[in-house]
């Protein structure tokens, strides 16, 4: 059916990533969160073998660290809830007061959400062929896509730079002793990152990145206005969804989709105008159909539930700890997020 080493088409991965990102973004119900995390880690486990996976593994470790910090932070600073597990002196700034099980559980759920989102990103990072992804985007968005791909590639490069800096410091007699010695790492990391960014920007310039298209193809002001309106509608729609205004959110997102499509399609270059070309044609076969189809179905189920039964995703451990709602159809649907693992030869 397909050669073992061929990666999936980026569009299939992006549909999957969108579907897998919904539960951690829209709520803190532990059941969909755990189901999503399990599915994502399952896919990561199957697709992350080799050098690409190794490059992104440190990011997962970093997410675990941030997750632990978030649990601790929430426990020590949110003094709300009905189940007190310990008490710190009131006189202590910020952390003084009752420590509650409610805060601990909310911190844990936030940590799971963070880990899920990072695991989705790491899976994309390890599996997505950005050069193919860039070529798939509409021509108007090519500069943005290249910038995004360079920024994306900085994540693993930053972990490499971090290792280099630590080694160089140790080779000069410095012995790092954990988090309190993070200071000497941050400045050289930032300086090195900025320096690398400048060189990359120069290289992009020198290699014709962003070369202007022919005059006929330049966007007219109304096309730019359409794109801007689309972006505003999308952001507002996401905000509405986050606030629980599902109908308004869905309407705005649909409007955003239509506006962006109109703006992008109407901005296509005229015949004969200079257009960017593609070196490689994308491959779309049965595995891509399966992953994108199943993921789109999961996404549809989630959107439907968001509109009809938001409680399926939501959970509030404050002020009283209650049992979270269980939505079996949702959990069953989330199980299908394992589809990429199933199509891996």
């Amino acid at each position, binding site marked *: 059916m397909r050669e073992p080493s061929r990666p999936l088409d980026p569009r299939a991965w992006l549909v999957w990533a969108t579907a897998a990102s919904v539960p951690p973004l829209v709520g803190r119900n532990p059941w969909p969160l755990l189901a999503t995390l399990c599915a994502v880690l399952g896919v990561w486990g199957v697709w992350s073998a080799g050098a690409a996976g190794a490059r992104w593994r440190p990011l997962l470790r970093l997410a675990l660290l941030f997750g632990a910090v978030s649990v601790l932070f929430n426990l020590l600073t949110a003094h709300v809830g009905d189940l007190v597990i310990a008490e710190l002196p009131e006189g202590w700034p910020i952390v003084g007061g009752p420590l509650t099980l409610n805060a601990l559980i909310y911190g844990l759920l936030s940590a799971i959400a963070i880990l899920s989102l990072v695991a989705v990103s790491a899976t994309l990072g390890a599996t997505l062929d950005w*050069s193919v992804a860039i070529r798939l985007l509409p021509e108007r968005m090519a500069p943005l896509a290249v910038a995004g791909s360079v920024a994306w590639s900085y994540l693993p490069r930053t972990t490499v730079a971090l290792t280099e800096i630590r*080694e*160089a410091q140790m080779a000069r*007699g410095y*012995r790092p002793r954990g988090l309190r010695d993070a200071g000497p790492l941050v400045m050289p990391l930032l300086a090195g990152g900025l320096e690398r960014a400048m*060189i990359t920007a120069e*290289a992009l310039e*020198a290699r014709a990145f962003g070369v202007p298209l022919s005059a006929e193809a330049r966007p007219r002001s109304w096309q730019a206005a359409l794109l801007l309106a689309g972006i505003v509608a999308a952001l507002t729609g996401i905000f509405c969804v986050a606030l629980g205004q599902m109908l308004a959110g869905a309407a705005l997102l649909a409007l955003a989709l239509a506006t962006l499509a109109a703006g992008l399609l109407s901005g296509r270059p005229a015949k004969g105008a200079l257009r960017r070309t593609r070196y490689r044609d994308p491959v779309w076969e049965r595995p891509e159909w399966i992953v994108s189809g199943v993921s789109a179905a999961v996404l549809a189920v989630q959107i439907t539930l968001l509109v009809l039964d938001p409680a399926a995703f939501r959970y509030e451990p404050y002020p009283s700890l209650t049992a979270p709602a269980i939505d079996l159809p949702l959990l069953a649907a989330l199980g299908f997020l394992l589809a990429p693992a199933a199509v891996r030869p």
Partner: protein
Amino acid sequence: MTDRAPGVAGDPPIIAFESVTYAYPESAAPALREIDWRVAPGEFVTITGPSGSGKSTLLRCLNGLTPHFSGGTFDGAVTVAGHDTRRYTPRALARVTGFVFQDPEAQFVTSRVDDELAFGMEQLGVPPLTMRKRVEEVLDLLGIAALRDREIATLSGGERQRVAVAAALALQPEILALDEPTSQLDPWGAEEVLAALTRLNDDLGLTIVLAEHRLERVVSHADRLTLLDRAGHIASEGRPRDVLAGADPAILPALLALGRQLDWQPLPLTVKEGRAAQRRDAAVGRLPAPAPPDPPAATGPAIVALQRVSAGWGQRKVLREIDLEVRPGELVALMGRNGSGKTTLLRLVAGLHRPASGRVLLEGADTARLHPADIAQTTGYLPQNPSALFFAETLRDELAFTLKHKRGAVADPEVTLAALGLAHALERNPRDLSGGERERAALAAVLVGAPRVLLLDEPTRGMDAARKRALATTLAQLREEGVAILLATHDVELVAEVATRVVLIGDGRVVADGGPRAVLSGSLTFATAINKLYGGGFLTPDDILAGFGRDRWAGSDSIRADLARDDRITPHRMR
């Protein structure tokens, strides 16, 4: 036997600089001053000069990165293929000038080799069929067809450099500008790249402008040599033979230095030309006395010992069953192809890499039981990427960092910087220094800790000839003081000058280990230019001059005097 014929001299120039003076932002002194310079279509021009003389800046004028990207004050005009660079952005000039940066890794924007080659063409809307054809052509041209589907992250330094050149060539520019393209390559890789460039220049008439310190590699390929001075002026230019006949001895490659000393006419640019001159000498009985043998190997207890050490990265084994001992006062040169395991061996000694099997002993202690910070009390490690060593705002603070974490004897920071020609940079940010200066700044940050074992990974990268000889002097001094030095390098001329022992590594094993005369003499790839002429144990111009009963080559002394004048110090020991 003659210089390569200039491309199409007499045609209107494809590159024209008209009174160009350029200063970087916040810099009082211009990097380039009153440059009037022309290049005919199809010429192969090499630009050389000391570190910080403006070679890279001049190259960057060819595609408009200077001043469009770097800002600053730009006077005068640069025209490339009829385009005034003040009016065209670098991205628009990409069709005209292909550019290869000093650090190939930084210029990659995709993860696969063939995608990288296609990137520029996609931006310019080259039709897919043409694109695929050109990708195949440049892959063959640079001898990298086997790398087509490889991830760039998995390539060696030399392979990356050739991919960077290929990516620039894929756009079929009229001008190709390259900033020290062979600085990271082993002799084979460098020759492959230069042969490819010469082929492009000869067969396609591509105009090539190349900035390079290592004249011995490029001078025979060039039609014309442009020499910049430290102030950013053109000091001299013309046919390489003419320019080098009158140049400061400090910048001369070994073969030309010897030719000048022995009054060979014409001055030889290639080993072949040198051999003809040497045969003429031999015909009249002018032959040097035999070279002395290598001095006896050092004895006594080893300060570094590798015992049946194997090591690698993941599943890939890089070093296999290595046995090696280094004693105080020895300078051991590690040589071998890119990717042969030289860097891994240095990292093992520095404690930054753990052996898969075997033991690494430092002063008798197993390094597996020591923290790298403890190992650093004895060793100083200069990695291949010197920027990784810099953390501080100023060079003074940088050296203070080493001193703060070092127990026992240390060197004086100001004397260390002065000895490396960096006295002027004490209060500067290390990251603002030029490539060669950075390399020396990183070396200063290591040397100030007065290590007893010095581990150097390609320390002459981006270093001009004068500084390289100064480094050789510094290394000789350290060796005399009893420092054990492990030097990983491709620079055979440097090795011939400073090494007491040479270890060749091939396929992860030690394939030769002995004195430099024994190991380098007669080697097909590691022999020096002088050895290729005279054979025997002759490695350097000084060996030949001694064989003729003449004084040492004057170049070294003139360089030391020059450096001392620059830094207002007299060369002296650092400790």
